[in-house]
């Protein structure tokens, strides 16, 4: 009878201790998961704020380009309408003075995509939702394949031999 009671006590003790061990392990895992989640959340906040700064800077650059290109377009149209004015203002001898119609440079500062590239290669990327990734990928794609590519075409036209001939 006594042996049966001891066995029951032992079994109960074993069950309580096992439950405690399992619970502690699960609790530790839960805490670990929460700490990890919090770290990743902090990293995402940092990543988003870096990308936001980059886009704000790029927006300033693009708005500057837009104003400048508008002025250049006005100059081009002015010279297209009055060829004698073009001959007079654009050429010194046989050489064209590009500065007279485009200023010192056509683009100046270039928009950057460093922050987005860094985020894409880091493990914080899995914290971004599908919508966020889609939004940012499309934006940087328009920046690269649209505006930057067209600017290269214009620079190509300006640098071409035909443009420099009287």
């Amino acid at each position, binding site marked *: 009878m006594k042996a049966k009671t001891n066995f029951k006590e032992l079994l109960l003790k074993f069950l309580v201790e096992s439950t405690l061990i399992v619970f502690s392990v699960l609790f530790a895992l839960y805490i670990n998961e929460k700490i990890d989640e919090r770290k990743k*959340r902090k990293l*995402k*906040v940092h990543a*988003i*704020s870096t*990308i*936001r700064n980059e*886009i*704000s800077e*790029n*927006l300033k650059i*693009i*708005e500057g*380009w*837009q104003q400048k*290109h*508008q002025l*250049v*377009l006005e100059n*081009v*149209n002015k010279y*297209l309408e009055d060829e004698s004015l073009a001959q007079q203002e654009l050429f010194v001898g046989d050489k064209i003075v590009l500065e007279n119609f485009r200023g010192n440079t056509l683009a100046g500062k270039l928009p950057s995509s460093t922050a987005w590239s860094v985020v894409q290669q880091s493990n914080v990327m899995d914290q971004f*939702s599908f919508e*966020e990734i889609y*939004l*940012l990928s*499309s*934006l940087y794609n*328009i*920046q690269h394949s*649209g*505006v930057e590519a*067209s*600017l290269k*075409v*214009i620079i190509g*036209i*300006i640098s071409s031999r035909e*443009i420099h001939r009287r």
Partner: protein
Amino acid sequence: MAVALNEIISQEQFLGTKMKEALEKISTSNQKLTE
């Protein structure tokens, strides 16, 4: 040249609009994260 410039100006306008939209959206998600 004028055609190419017109093209790039409209691309810049489009990109500018997209940038403003993206800024608005990521600011909202950043706000949600910091709440």
